[in-house]
């Protein structure tokens, strides 16, 4: 199915196009980038429209030999989970372009090229089913993101960029080791040396080895998610990145970690993952509460949302390791919801910063009256972020907690505390920014047409996800069932390496 590779390579070709001929033609590059990302979105929607599962539950598969000597293929596949995340990626593309329209003052062509390159990397991560290919895209998305942060970021951008890069890189390199280990063990067992995901699923690993390999993958994903205590790159990166960068970071890059858990950690190492589940859930709950707590004491709005992302992604991990229908469905849905919601919130903070010149809550206040449109839309997204029923995050968090509750009521209770704290910090943020007396008198301009359309679209997405998530959840039926089957296939009384 060649459309998958179109999905991946369209942005990078667009990036080349823009990068080569777009110098000093700001207007042209803007529209070109918008055109490319919109085409991408249309293709993604078309793929969604035509999606029909095959025997393995994959809607589309594409298999081309790449490096036959090593058993590396160009193997792309899209099942329900990747479809949803691809949709999210495609949606956030135009959003990021539109948000940067006037916010990026210099070197628009390079910026657009990097943005598109990042999108390619992320698309690749969500689509590749060959482990080396996956790793290639996994690393590939780092570099343009590094430059987005490092070149267009705010005050401490270089520090943040380094931190971002080194944290994620160290993790992913360990994953590389694990991938290679998997490859050779599989090769020794079966005589077929391949990185093919479907082949590797058949592998049967001894307990300790499985655990170590799983940890190799897990560390890479945990850094991306990010889980406590390896989250410390995230607030810096989010804060210093330009708005579009933050949108991609929070909306998409964090999802790649969770996606990795779902796609690789659980099915490849079911036994080890099952043993690891309590720890995974503990890390999740720590993330939920810790992120919420720290969000409470942030002055910088972007930093606040960054910590809230830690909290929300904690829920995702929570759901993943609950490993049942509700938990997994909820985790994926929450990923989507968080992508849209947080993307929108970062976009709005960017707009706010363009208008007020600051993101500090101490310097904002009372903006509801001069900026009613912005304020009310921000309220909508804030509510979504604190999982207001009817809005995007709710169903996800609800399902996650419902899933977790079946595993352990205590964990569910702790997670529910996270919802309460979520309300506390988000409302407080909203109050400090939008309510009260206006602190700065200046000529405020409310959202213009571009921004309204952009945020309106995201608001629609938020409402759709909240009110009618069934079309999205339908896609998850097959992959989630497969995951649960993988769990059920684990022999009872297997070695509990961790306990």
């Amino acid at each position, binding site marked *: 199915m060649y459309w998958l590779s179109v999905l991946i390579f369209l942005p990078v070709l667009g990036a080349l196009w823009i990068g080569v001929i777009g110098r000093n033609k700001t207007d042209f590059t803007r529209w070109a980038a918008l055109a490319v990302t919109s085409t991408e979105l249309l293709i993604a929607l078309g793929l969604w429209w035509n999606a029909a599962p095959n025997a393995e539950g994959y809607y589309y598969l594409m298999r081309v030999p790449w490096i036959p000597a090593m058993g590396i293929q160009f193997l792309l596949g899209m099942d329900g989970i990747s479809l949803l995340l691809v949709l999210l990626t495609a949606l956030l593309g135009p959003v990021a372009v539109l948000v940067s329209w006037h916010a990026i003052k210099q070197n628009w062509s390079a910026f657009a090229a990097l943005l598109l390159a990042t999108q390619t990397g992320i698309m690749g991560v969500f689509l590749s089913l060959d482990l080396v290919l996956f790793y290639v895209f996994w690393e590939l998305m780092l570099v343009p993101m590094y430059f987005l942060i490092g070149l267009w970021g705010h005050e401490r951008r270089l520090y943040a960029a380094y931190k971002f890069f080194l944290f994620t890189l160290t993790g992913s390199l360990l994953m590389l080791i694990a991938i290679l280990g998997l490859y050779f063990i599989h090769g020794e067992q079966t005589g077929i040396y391949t990185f093919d995901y479907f082949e590797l699923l058949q592998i049967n690993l001894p307990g300790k080895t499985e655990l170590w390999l799983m940890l190799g993958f897990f560390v890479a994903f945990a850094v991306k998610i990010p889980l406590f205590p390896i989250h410390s790159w995230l607030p810096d990166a989010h804060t210093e990145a330009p708005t579009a960068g933050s949108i991609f970071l929070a909306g998409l890059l964090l999802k790649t970690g969770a996606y990795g858990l779902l796609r690789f950690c659980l099915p490849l190492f079911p036994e080890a993952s099952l043993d690891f589940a309590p720890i995974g859930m503990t890390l999740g709950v720590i993330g939920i509460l810790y992120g919420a707590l720290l969000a409470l004491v942030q002055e910088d709005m972007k930093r606040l949302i960054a910590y809230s992302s830690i909290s929300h992604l904690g829920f995702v991990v929570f759901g993943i390791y609950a490993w049942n229908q509700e938990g997994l469905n909820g985790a994926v849905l929450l990923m989507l919801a968080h992508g849209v919601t947080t993307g929108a919130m970062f976009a709005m903070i960017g707009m706010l910063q363009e208008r007020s010149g600051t993101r500090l809550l101490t310097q904002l206040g009372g903006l509801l009256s001069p900026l009613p449109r912005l304020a009310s839309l921000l309220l909508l997204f804030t509510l979504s972020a604190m999982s207001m029923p*009817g809005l995007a995050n709710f169903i996800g968090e609800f*399902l996650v907690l419902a899933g977790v509750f079946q595993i352990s*009521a205590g964990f569910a209770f702790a997670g529910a505390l996270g919802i309460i704290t979520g309300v506390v910090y988000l409302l*407080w943020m909203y*109050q400090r920014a939008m309510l*009260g007396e206006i602190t700065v008198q200046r000529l405020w301009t409310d959202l213009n047409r571009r921004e309204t359309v952009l945020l309106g679209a995201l608001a629609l997405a938020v409402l759709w996800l909240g009110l009618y998530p069934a079309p999205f959840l339908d896609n998850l039926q097959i992959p989630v069932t497969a995951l649960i089957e993988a769990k059920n296939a684990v022999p009872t009384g297997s070695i509990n390496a961790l306990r």
Partner: protein
Amino acid sequence: MNQWLWLIPGTPLLGSLVIALLGGLLRREHIAVLACLAAAAAFLVVLLAWLAGAASQPLQQTLYTWVAVGDWRPMFGFMLDRLALVMVSIVSGVGLLVHLYSVSFMAEETDQRRYYFFLNLFLAGMLLLVLADNLLLLYLGWELVGLCSYALIGFWYRDPVCSNAGRKAFIVTRIGDTALALGIFLLFSQFHELSLSALLTDAAAQWEKGSALATVATLLILGGAVGKSAQLPLQVWLPDAMAGPSPVSALMHAATMVTAGVYLIARTHPLFELAPQTQWLVAAIGALTIVYGASAALAQIDFKKVLAYSTISQIGYMFLALGCGAYALALFHLTTHAFFKALLFLSAGAVIQASRDEHDINKLGKIGHHPPLARWTFLAGAASLAGVPVVTAGFYSKDAILATAWSAPAGPLLWTFAAFGALLTAIYIFRVYLIVFHGAAPQTSTLSLPYPMSVPLLILALLSIISGFIELPEGWPGPHLWSPWFEEELGLATFPSLTITYMLQLIAALLPFIGMGLACVLIRRERANQPLPLANFLRCGWNFDAFYQATLARPYYALARGLRGIVETLLIEGALTRITCGLLAFATFCRKGVEYNVLEVSISRLVATLRFAYTLLGTTQNGVLSRYALVISTGAVFFLGYWLW
């Protein structure tokens, strides 16, 4: 009619959407009219539902599959049975009246669009809550009304008092909501089903009476109900919520939203019947709250806060009835309370607005302007609240609850609380009435109210007087329409024997009059500057705020003690703010302690180590050729030495 059910919440929702999206194009007055039309449409649909026979045959509609997870597919579906029918009637009726009232009351406000958007949205949410046929949808409505409450309490957002109050309300109710959510999770994990009808039959079939799971589940649901209905111990938000506009207080914090807890328990009563301990706890909470609210109301000086505590106390009656298994009576009181409390708030609002937003009852008494209509309707509401026998609706509903409480476990005790509460009720409401309307202010005010305000007041006054007549007390001749109509759905209340009933009725009938007398005494003492003992304690709502500070905030406080600089910032008013601040301190501790001192420092340590290693290695690279050769030779020695080993 089945397929039109969605119109009931749909019309106000549509109204709110139109206001939100197109409100910019409309003039202020038109927005108000639009909102009223939406509310009226909802009411109209409810009336049509009555006509279509919803009273005899429950209506149902399923819009679409909301969530599809595995084999669990909760629908976006509505169910209109008798319980829901009564609720939607009250909600849409009172809602319509309040909308009307708002047209005049809020005419001066600039931000009509926001106001009516949330008012309509609230109506939609409340109707959704009531109509929901599964717990998930109910939870949606539940949160939606909480949100609107938050937004409207903080309507005057420029005032930090208002926005703080809104936030407090949201957070406190959210605590209850989370309990409710956990309860839902528990039920879901047990039955894999959230549809109300299926859930209740399953529960009845699978759970033994008094089983631990049932108790826990009902306790969690009770948590949600307590939070939303402002019962002990989560009542702290309601008095603060009076910072919002009066129509909002009337609609949400008196008539409808706060009774959602009552509705929830009534709706899930089969579960509660499986858990007698919880049910008794419901009754006990109700009884305690009655006294708590009434006593706190006794010492208030803010006009609306009196009514707020009164609401807390009155909902206590409903909880008492629920706890005693008299669900229909709880609903009865809910209905009459909706009328008279809305009336009280609306007329109080009229007075307050006429007196340039003066809330202090003493000042209102001295210099306030009292539109005559407001005065008389307030009196009607007060009488109904106090339960003046025979002529008011409040008498009938409250009397029945008192009677049924007697026959519950530990009945006389409950009854005593309830009766004492009734006495206090009479005292505080007449105290307020007398202070405000019989103070030094010119009594012959001729201020007249505009029609949008006066018509709702009159209708509500009428209803608070006559709505009781549909069900006369046990043992009296006359119509007994209410309880039997509900028998199928909610069962019948039990009453003590007829003689005791008569006794109790007599006492109950006397209480208002005693109360009136005591109120006069109280006022005289107050005017002589001899306030009630414990007045301050009562005024602060039994110092609950302080109590929470001590029990919840202090542990966090201890955590934060090491961080001197932050401690200062902790000293902000209000209990929940205290808790928040406790969290805040802890969070700051985490930020300083963990984020910076541990994580950042470990990174910088690593960097320093690497740099040190670099320097160390770099100094060996001193440019002297012999040194290089030496290193090579040393390496050679080691490598050759390897072969010896």
